[in-house]
């Protein structure tokens, strides 16, 4: 049970001045003490989204809105609001809606509501059409139970792409509180503080659900964890990995980890001397001990990687990728053989992520072991991407994860010549950052259009092999999401995509 707040008067001895200021700890805690009410602390403010989309609350975590397509634990698509969908032709999809689904205010789910939800998203962000390959007018009503999507070019992975929470279906009329079709409805929104939900009785399954769910915003990871340790919250999202073991060992708290579709890796600049020398790139790979890295930098939370794509993603070919099993002597030989002349390599790191800083320092240490000098350059989040895509650094710590079932855009963004990481330099002077070249581009395009998963795996697998072989990247780890919870709270429905964690089966012993 959560520790009741003690009645003791605060520091009676403190000067008379503050006596008036502090009454005993007030009993009206925000979270009700009922047994099945839960509080989840989030890293980002759940109440600061765009008002005319999702009525200002976050589409992630809350399960107030449901997209047409769901994502299984194996990152496959599954029916959600759409029972089934078929590709009428190469560029047209038709989704038939589940019947009997009602919005929280009782109105039935209709095709026009789906079209309206998509239009809202298109209006809000101009870059969405480019992302999902559908123009704003490409979403039309066939009949009240069917919606048609017109893609600009053949896109087999389209259904997976719209499983993203951004495409959760909302009620068409402007309402003051957010209205969706999800298992939870919104009862209270305290701006910049919290969103409180209660179960939606009219939901299609009548499973047992917590009586109240509150998503609280606690930005600083340490403060978030301290609140967990204090007992004022039940679940803390993304706690510092460095503290995970001690939280797990403590009696009142425990942790839950989940392998995610995102991977941490070093993008090696293929077009900037001296990392344009393949031998040097391979030498660097030989110097890195992924298992040791995960153990010391990530406190054991994460899976040592062999390639750039997390093994959770269906078309990742983790097992049959070449490995550089750490061997410092081989690395030193390769450095001698390479044209490396002692120039200092720059390691670009995003200052927002504390773990990246630690990883970079470990790499810095290992590289100097094999005689390669390097210097860490930490850059703030806003200008990190600019600096990276301008190819200013030799090595850049990047981490790419997908928030939807379609992870194709990951491999495209990283290794395709006009993928988002390489486009700027490719258009300017035909180079890029870590796109190996036209051969790999063609493989990516074939994989993109592959009808079956096996075909996709074969094309994308070849891309992964080549990228690892030529040392365009230095694989590091597949990211494990870690959250803290009270030891007597269980039933968190884990999911590779952190933002899709399920809370319906939460219970307190």
């Amino acid at each position, binding site marked *: 049970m959560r520790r009741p707040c003690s009645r003791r008067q605060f520091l009676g001895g403190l000067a008379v001045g503050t006596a008036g200021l502090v009454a005993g700890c007030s009993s009206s805690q925000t979270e009700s003490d009922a047994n099945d009410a839960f509080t989840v602390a989030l890293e980002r403010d759940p109440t600061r989204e765009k008002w005319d989309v999702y009525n200002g609350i976050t589409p992630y975590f809350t399960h107030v809105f449901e997209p047409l397509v769901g994502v299984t634990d194996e990152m496959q698509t599954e029916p959600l609001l759409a029972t089934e969908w078929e590709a009428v032709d190469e560029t047209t999809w038709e989704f038939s809606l589940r019947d009997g689904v009602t919005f929280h205010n009782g109105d039935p789910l209709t095709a026009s509501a789906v079209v309206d939800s998509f239009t809202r998203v298109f209006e809000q962000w101009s870059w969405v059409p480019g992302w999902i390959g559908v123009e704003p007018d490409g979403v039309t009503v066939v009949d009240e139970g069917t919606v048609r999507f017109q893609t600009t070019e053949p896109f087999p992975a389209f259904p997976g792409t719209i499983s993203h929470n951004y495409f959760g279906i909302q009620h068409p009329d402007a309402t003051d509180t957010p209205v969706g079709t999800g298992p939870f409805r919104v009862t209270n929104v305290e701006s910049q503080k919290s969103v409180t939900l209660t179960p939606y009785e009219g939901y299609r399954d009548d499973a047992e659900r917590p009586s109240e769910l509150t998503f609280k915003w606690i930005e600083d990871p340490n403060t978030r964890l301290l609140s967990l340790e204090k007992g004022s919250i039940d679940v803390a999202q993304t706690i510092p990995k460095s503290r995970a073991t001690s939280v797990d060992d403590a009696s009142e708290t425990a942790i839950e980890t989940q392998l995610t579709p995102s991977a941490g890796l070093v993008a090696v600049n293929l077009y900037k001397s001296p990392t344009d020398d393949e031998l040097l790139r391979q030498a660097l790979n030989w110097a890195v001990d992924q298992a*040791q890295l995960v153990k010391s930098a990530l406190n054991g939370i994460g899976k040592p990687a062999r390639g750039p794509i997390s093994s959770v993603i269906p078309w990742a070919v983790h097992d049959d990728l070449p490995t550089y099993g750490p061997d410092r002597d081989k690395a030193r030989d390769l450095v001698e053989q390479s044209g490396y002349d002692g120039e200092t390599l720059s390691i670009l790191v995003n200052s*927002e992520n*504390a773990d990246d800083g*630690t990883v970079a320092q*470990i790499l810095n240490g290992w590289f100097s072991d094999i005689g390669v000098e390097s210097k*860490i350059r930490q850059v703030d989040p806003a200008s990190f991407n600019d600096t990276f895509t301008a190819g200013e650094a030799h090595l850049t710590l990047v981490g790419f994860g997908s928030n939807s079932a379609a992870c194709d855009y990951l491999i495209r963004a990283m290794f395709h010549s006009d993928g988002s990481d390489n486009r700027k330099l490719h258009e300017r002077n035909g180079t890029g950052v870590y796109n190996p070249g036209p051969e790999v581009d063609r493989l990516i395009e074939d994989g993109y259009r592959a009808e079956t998963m096996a075909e996709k795996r074969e094309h994308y697998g070849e891309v992964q092999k080549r990228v690892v072989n030529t040392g365009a990247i230095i694989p590091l780890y597949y990211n494990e999401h870690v959250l803290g919870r009270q030891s007597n709270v269980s039933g968190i429905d884990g999911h590779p995509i952190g933002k899709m964690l399920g809370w319906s089966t939460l219970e307190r012993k």
Partner: protein
Amino acid sequence: MPSNRLTQVGAGIVLALLVIATFGPTLSPYDPAEQDLQHRLEAPSAEHPLGTDQLGRDVLTRLLHGARLSLGVAAAVTAVRLVVGTLVGLLAGYAGGWVDEALMRLVDTLLAFPGIILALVIAGILGPSLVNVMLALAVVGWASYARLVRSSVLSLREREFVTAARLLGRSRTHVVARHLVPNAIAPVVVLATLDIGGVILGTAGLSFLGLGAQPPTPEWGTMLASGRNHLREAWWLVNAPGVLIMLTVFGFNLLGDSLRDALSPTQSAQLGEL
């Protein structure tokens, strides 16, 4: 007024810090960058008096090396503030007229800003690095020196020995250099001593917000800021730099206070109004 006992304590601390800053590197038992991933986050022990950090590096060594860096940064920023402030103060005080008016409006504007917030905006936009932090803190902090120097120049200007020097045909620069600066310098030195503490805390604050020195540089503020992620298991990681920073700022404040008491009443009054 703290009697001389507190002054001795203050001077003692500052002296000890200078010794650490100069001889630190030679005194330190290990190489600050040498990682030992097998001995990560070990509690203080015989061979690691202050334990090891998340990469197995010896915390004591990094603190000793960091001393030169942190104090160097603080001294450099304070020096820049002092020089710029004194120049502007002298110019405004001595030139008078619209020059004085314009400069003083600028000073008032800068003083109207809580320093750290302005520094945060500058450092935030320029990106995280020790140089940016130093630049931001320097740009922000010189105004108080300017106002102090100007007020002491104004009060000195009327004094006989200045007018006498002018009567003897001394050039303006001579008067400024020979007469005004020596007299104005005492309160400025005191302000600088009191200011160094503020700069050190400012650097630590900016590091906490993610704008500090680039890893793996062992700067105290950054070590304190990154140590916070191991708050409870590796308590020494955050408390060792914390205590050191506290002692440093405490030492400088004590020294500053006692120097201030050695000033003449008028000088300390000028200082007091800041």
